[in-house]
Each structure stands twice: as C-alpha cells, then as structure tokens.
C-alpha cells in the first residue's frame, strides 16, 4: 500500500529533476564572473606588484607603473569628467592640453596613492552592473602583516566596457571616489580663477613634477 502510493511521487520527483536539469547545468555559467570583475582581478594585483618590486629603481618603477596604468585607464574620459561644467566653455585645444597635463598628474597621484598598499593583496568580492557597459567591482585589500583584527580596506573600481575592452574610469578607497574628489577640486580651482583652464593646466603640471620628487 505504502509502495503504491509512493511510486507516483518518486516518478514526479524524477520528472521534476529532469525538467530542472537544463537549469542546473546553466547554473555555473550564470554565476561566472563578469568581464569587469575578471579585468580587476587579473590586472590590479600586477600594478601593486610593480610598486612593491624592490629590484626596480624609482625611475623604472614610475616608468613601468605609467605604462601599466595608461594601458588600463581611460584617461581622457576621466580628465573631461573632472572639468565639470567648464568642459562646455573650454576650447578643444585647451581640453587636449588639459588631458595631457592630467595624464602626468594622474600617473604621479595614483602611484602615490597606491604605493602605501603595495604590500597588500587584492581580493575581488563582487560586481554590480550600473548600466549595460558600466560596472562597479568591489574588492578588499588584505594586509598580511595585520594581526590586530582591523577590517580590510574596501576598494571599489568603476569599469566601462563601451568598446568591448574593459577600461578603468574611477577608484574608490574607503568610499571616496577619486574622480569625484578631483572634479570637486578642479571645478573649485576654476571657479576661483574665472574658469581659466590654462591656469589649471599650469598648476597640474607643477603638481605632477612635485609629486614625482621624493617626500622630505
């Protein structure tokens, strides 16, 4: 009696499992990391390794880091964003000159920001798709020397894939987005200087030179 009642149930369960089989098979593929997370995972640790490489001189480190950074980052997109509302009134020649000055400044500033984390390890913890070609990848910097139970530093990356190839457009350290912070600074500077983009270019060039020098 018990067996006759359970047979239809068993049959239904087997049929149900068979019906779900394609979904189960598709499961791992759906959980595969997106291109932005893979891009961050594969590349950022390389940058930290360059900064931590004791074999390289300061000049070699800077050269390698510059090459590495410019291969990953969409400098023009960031530079134009940081001009804020002044982008509309700046001449194309001034914008081009600004992008060139920003490139040198960004290399020096990013090298300076990330040098302090060079001995740490990056672990990607997730990724969110903000728009079809706009991703936020979340990660943690693990400090192998920390034994005090300090929570790991959170570092987020904004990655765009408009051209098919992922590029980095912003980084947030402990919740502070660098491009936003730079835009706030540059637009404040331009506001104090009647929107004079050339004054900003001159200032950025001086800063990039100073950042390249060792600290006192």
């Amino acid at each position, binding site marked *: 009696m018990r067996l006759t009642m359970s047979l239809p149930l068993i049959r239904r369960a087997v049929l149900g499992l068979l019906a779900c089989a394609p979904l189960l098979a598709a499961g791992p593929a759906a959980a595969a990391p997106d291109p932005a997370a893979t891009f961050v995972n594969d590349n950022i640790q390389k940058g930290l390794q360059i900064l931590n490489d004791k074999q390289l001189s300061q000049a070699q480190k800077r050269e390698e880091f510059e090459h590495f950074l410019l291969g990953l980052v969409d400098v023009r*997109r960031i530079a134009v964003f940081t001009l804020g509302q002044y982008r509309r009134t700046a001449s194309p020649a001034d914008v081009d000159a600004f992008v060139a000055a920003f490139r040198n400044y960004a290399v*020096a500033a990013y090298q300076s920001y990330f040098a302090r984390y060079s001995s740490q390890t990056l672990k990607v913890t997730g990724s969110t798709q903000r728009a079809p070609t706009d991703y936020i990848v979340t990660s943690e910097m693990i400090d192998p020397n920390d034994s005090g*139970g300090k929570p790991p530093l959170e570092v987020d990356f904004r990655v765009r894939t408009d051209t098919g190839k992922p590029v980095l457009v*912003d980084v947030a350290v402990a919740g502070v987005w660098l491009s*936003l*912070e730079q835009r706030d600074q540059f637009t*404040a*500077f331009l506001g104090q200087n009647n929107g004079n983009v050339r004054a900003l270019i001159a200032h950025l060039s001086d800063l990039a030179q100073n950042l390249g020098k060792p600290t006192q």
Partner: protein
Amino acid sequence: MRSPRQAIRTLLLGLCTLAVSLAVSACAAPSPQALAANDPLEPTNRAIFQVNRLWDRCCLVPTLERYRAWVPAGGRRAIHNFLGNLSGPITLVNDIAQGEPDRGGQTAERFVINSTLGLGGLFDPAGRWGIPPHSEDMGQTFGVWGINEGPYLMIPLLGPSNPRDVAGITANVLLDPTNLIPMKQHLWWASFHQYMVLIDLRSQTLDTLREVERSSVDYYASMRSLYRQVRAEQIRNGKPAPAKDLPDL
C-alpha cells in the same frame, strides 16, 4: 621647529586675518559655484580653514611629532584602543537608534571583553577573536533617520562639518557616560579626554592628509569632498554607494 612665541604671533596674525575676511565675506552673496557645491558660506569657511591650518601647523603637528617620538607604536595603539573602548556606550546607543541590533550586539560584546580581558580597553582581544571594531555617532544616526546634512561648515579648531554633525557632536557629549561620573575636576577630565581624542584622530590621519595636501590642486575643496564622501560612507556602514547615485562618467 617654531618657538612658542612665533607660533602665538602667527596664530594671532591668522585670527586678525580671519576677522577681516569674515567681515568682508559676510557682506558678499554666495557665488553660483559655492551654491553648486552646497557651500554657501565658502568665503567664510575658507578663511576659517586657513586659520585651522595655521593652528594645525603651529600647535597640533608639533605636538603630534613629539607624541610619535616619545610614545612607541604599541603605546599609541593602546591609547587608541582605550579611547575607542570609552566611546563604546555611545556607539551602542547609536547602533540601537539606527535599528542595527547585530552591530549593537558586537559593540556590547567588544565593550565587555575589552573592558575586562583587555585591561580597561588598552588591548583589543575582541578584535583578535573576530569581532571587528566600528564607530557610530549621533551625526550618523541623524543621517540614517533621513535628516539632511545642511550646508557645509568649517568649524574653528575642529575642522569640516555641517549642521547635522554639529547637532550630533552636541548630542554625543550629552550621551557620553563619562560625563555623568560625578567628579570634582570634571572640566579638566572632559577637556583632556577631547584633547586626546583629537590627538589620536589626527595622529591616525597625519600621513594621509600630508599626502592629500601634497597632491591637491585646491586643498580646501579636496577636504570638503573627502569629508562629505567619508561621512556618507560611514552612514552606509561601509556599504558601497548605490550605483544610481554615482554620476555618469
């Protein structure tokens, strides 16, 4: 290094400049850029910022340099732990007020473990056992409750803030249980406590802020942006900003 007389003269000069700047800026209407940056008092704030920098350079940084030279890293860590543990009850009240019972439980556990096994909070055994520290204040709680931050403010000697955080600082003083302990020299204790909190906080941020100043085009605007973003992140308890809140880039 500056002599105390030089430092006082520089500070007095800075205060005179501040008074003149405040008088001039009080008459001026806020610029469109200042309004766009939610900083309608920008000229006044910038003047106070300059005086704060003088105070920082002439008084705080020399003190910090001596603090770092005389107190070894382990001692500074113990002071940091002790001050953090002392603010545990304030964090606990705010965890509860924010509707975060799990975080409240962590705070209570940390307070009990560190106050006893950690010798009054000088050591952090709770952190080693996987209960990480976190800090909450009334400014953050007001933010969680949906109260708007209001315009950006630069507070003399204290630094960046906004009306919501000023109200939060006042509420924190009222919440602080150490202020309820009856003692004859209470003012001295409260002043010493706040001074040590300032020294500890500034000591933690000394190198980072030097780097920020060195790489800034406009240090004032940079601090304004950093303060806002950091406070927003603290209100979210470290969670990433909602993707829709980020600008198109």
